[in-house]
């Protein structure tokens, strides 16, 4: 492939990579926050800072 072809290919890869990366971040943030909140809640109950 010519140099120009590689440059165009890497620009497309860069755009797709960025979209996939931040798209996935947005998709899992909600579920991850719920899990972390529940886990922290259980720990606070365990050390007596919060009631069951």
């Amino acid at each position: 492939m010519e140099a120009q072809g590689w440059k165009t290919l890497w620009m497309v890869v860069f755009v797709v990579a960025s979209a996939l990366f931040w798209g996935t971040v947005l998709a899992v943030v909600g579920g991850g926050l719920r899990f972390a909140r529940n886990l922290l809640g259980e720990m606070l109950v365990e050390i007596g800072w919060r009631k069951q």
Partner: protein
Amino acid sequence: MHLHWIDLVIVLVYLGGTILIGLLARTSIKSVADFLVAGRTLNVQIGVATYVATGLGLVTVMYFAEEGFKNGFAPFLVGVLATVVFIFIGKTGFIVSRLRFLQVMTVPEFYEIKYTRGVRLLGGCILALAGTLNMGLFPILGSRFVVGFTGLPKEYVNYVMLVMVAVVVFYTLMGGMVSVVLVDFVQFLLLSMGFLFGTYAILTHPDLGWTNIVNGLAAHKGAAAFDPIANLDYGYIFIFYFLSVSLIGIVWQPEMTHVLSTESPKVARKMFWIQGLTMVGRAVLPMFWGAAAFVWVHLPTYGGLYADDGRFAMPEMISQLLPPVVAGLLFAGMLAAFMSTHDSYLLSWSAVIVRDVVSPIKAMLAGSAQERSDEGNWGGLTGEREIRWVRIIVVILAAFLVAFGTFYTPPETSFKFMYVTGTIYFAGCVGTIGLGLYWRKANTVGAYCALVMGAIAPLSFLILAEMPEVVPHHLRFLVENSNISIMSSLLLGGLGMIVGSLLTQKSHAPRPLDFAEME
């Protein structure tokens, strides 16, 4: 110092929060399974976040940036290949489903199920050696980022490394995998935001931007900055090796720990292909930062300290492009990335050393039966003693890492060093795990052959690269570029299992595995 006082406050708040999480997480550790695989409770979302966070460490960012600084956009191919392989694995469940179904906590534990305790001991030793060497450069790479980003003098690099490792050891000892999961998630959020702001700052900077970076790379490096086939660091052999090693590389204990911590094999598969979507970004974005740093240090206006040093230039550039607060958030995210990789790796390698080396030796000496107890142990140490041993090994490993980072310089780039050391273990896994899970004739003798034959080539490369003068001149190419030795080791690992097993089918009958009830 490049940092504003607000940035330092953000970093201190983050570090304080991390230590608090470690203390809190200690309350939820009730068994060895809680400590090592978070009680196998992870759902898809937290599983993806924590897996990505482990894979996207500060170390990864630094060595990918170093590749971008040295080779421009050509290494982007690495991200594309890894994504294709990860999505394939996630969709088919190749290896991950079966290992999760067998409920092992470390990968060599599979060796005791499928082969013998002796194979587990040898596999555990090789994995521990490969893993410890592989991790050897992590602290120094992280420390270089901090020094480059803050503008501290280069002489401080070892002291910074010592402090960072001490913080990681503290909260890993406290909360095990539970604190690892929580800190990983915070890092995932901070670093994702940091990537966004950093990339935006590069793309909108008047001296950088996509076009200026492309033109700068073309002017200084020519076609090799874009064409991975023409670039001597890559080429067809490396591409074939990378595809193969990515397929078997999922058995790398720190990443596999997250798979083994999921609720079920089905969740493990789903988590795997979703996180695979992020792989291309995890590689390409830091490589882009590294390429941008190369152009940055060649600008006529550049007045920094690191014109020829890609290891420090990227953090220096980023710290100067970002405004206060945003720089602090990115810095905290990078520190989090440093810690989240170290905690996972320290915990994983310590678990392997204890469960797959110390515990089997004790079981052998005691002559106990080769079967798994309800607690998940195999007749060696009790669960409580395993946790105590893991904590001791974490401290010993941390001390080794500080010493290794201070005194060792790799023969090639940091990225290549990671793959050469990882291959000491991966190569044997082609036979022991790849064929062991899917080929009925795989037996114990084949497993020993695969482990030994797979480890020889990469170990020889690492040793001979330190003293190339003893290598005959016509063979010097073997120690000047690692591509041939790592590719041949993968073939030897698979070949060892096939030949060893076929020759000894009668004397060493293979143990069958039953996956009929797997989801």
